[in-house]
């Protein structure tokens, strides 16, 4: 799925941020003393999908965390519709959903209470919560405390946050982990509806997901050579 034409090349994008969509320029990431990737550019128009691929440790999760604003990039800058993110972090937080590896669920709260909390913190209402639970096949489990949910159900509940409160940018770190085929289909349907509404999405995955018109970004192309890694940290 990573044929050369669909991989965004490092130097084919202009240096100025585009006016439309989410973009990153010359991004570099350092974890500990190691430069994970550098010189990474990406552009994501509204309605677009960007799939991060690469071996373990190539920086997929790190890039998603940089995009979310959790980790500052070691170098480079991100922009949304031409405005640098570091100028308006609050606006960026309000427009994104980030679903990482952890499901952020409390064992003693019911599925409905848990989703209700995350949704109402973003201004959503009870109807949206019920719809999102139903859409991810959790209607029957709504009253169950999260400690009784299976791993796949917990994943579905975490993903239900995406549709319970709308946000134009979704950042998903291996979202299909633990999902059965029904769950994966529900996820793909949610992503398709999100993109039809002009939403954009970045996700990392190892399992092939059927995303039409998705751009692929191979992180291993931005791995520094040994001499560059040494030079950048010197």
């Amino acid at each position, binding site marked *: 799925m990573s044929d050369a034409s669909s991989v965004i090349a490092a130097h084919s994008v202009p240096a100025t941020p585009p006016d439309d969509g989410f973009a990153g320029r010359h991004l570099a990431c350092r974890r500990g003393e190691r430069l994970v990737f550098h010189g990474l550019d990406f552009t994501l128009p509204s309605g677009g999908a960007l799939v991060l691929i690469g071996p373990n440790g190539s920086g997929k999760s790190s890039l998603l965390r940089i995009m979310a604003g959790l980790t500052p990039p070691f170098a480079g800058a991100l922009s949304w519709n031409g405005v640098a993110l570091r100028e308006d972090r*609050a606006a960026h*937080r309000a427009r994104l959903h980030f679903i990482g590896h952890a499901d952020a669920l*409390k064992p003693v709260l019911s599925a409905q209470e848990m989703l209700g909390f995350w949704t109402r913190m973003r201004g959503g209402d009870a109807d949206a919560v019920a719809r999102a639970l139903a859409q991810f096949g959790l209607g029957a489990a709504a009253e169950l405390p999260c400690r009784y949910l299976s791993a796949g159900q917990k994943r579905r509940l975490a993903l239900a946050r995406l549709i319970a409160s709308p946000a134009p940018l979704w950042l998903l770190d291996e979202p299909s982990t633990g999902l059965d085929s029904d769950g994966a289909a529900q996820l793909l349907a949610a992503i398709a509806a999100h993109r039809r509404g002009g939403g954009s999405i970045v996700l990392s995955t190892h399992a092939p997901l059927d995303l039409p018109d998705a751009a692929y970004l191979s992180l291993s192309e931005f791995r520094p050579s040994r001499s560059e890694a040494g030079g950048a940290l010197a």
Partner: protein
Amino acid sequence: MSPFLLLVGRDLRLALRQGGDAAMVVAFFVLTVVLFPFGVGPEPELLQRIATGIIWVTALLASLLSLERLFQADFDDGSLEALALLPLPLEAQVLAKCLAHWLVSGLPLTVVAPLLGLLLHLDSAGYPILVLGMAIGTPVLSLLGAIGAALTLGARRGGVLLSLLVLPLYIPVLIFGVAAVEAQIAGFPSRPHLLLLAALLILALGLVPFAAAGALRQAVE
């Protein structure tokens, strides 16, 4: 409901469902205070003289008990990342979590303190000031503790480290809390001590959210 109150409500609900946290803090407080008459002897004059000090020192230790959990559970299950990405600023979230922590630790301690005063023959003039002082002082304990709890996230043996970090910061609260009661019993005005406690509270309310939120951002980075 505002996001601030939603977060307070969630933390209260978690504390009540998981049970134990509030009850454990109060039980520790009562049991430890009850140990003192066994240790120093039951003479009413002696107990009366050290009653305020015992109650305040034990309250400090009891409020430390549940502090370790303030952010740790959210850190472990990934909630802290999700919280940090909510539109509600992390500074406001720190205040919300401190308020919830105070409601299940400082407030019960304040309510129980006069009963323990009775046990230790505390002079009757001291009771109103003891309660008032604890009502002003225990929120400072929750707030200062939040800095320690945020800084020690992810550290091994974080609970011990937390105590070492936070207990020295508790000293001013202890001094003015005890001094207010002692002054009242001795017939001096307690007002200056209470005002100083209130000043500590205002200072903590203004500074702690920024310090703790900074430490939390480091922790989720």
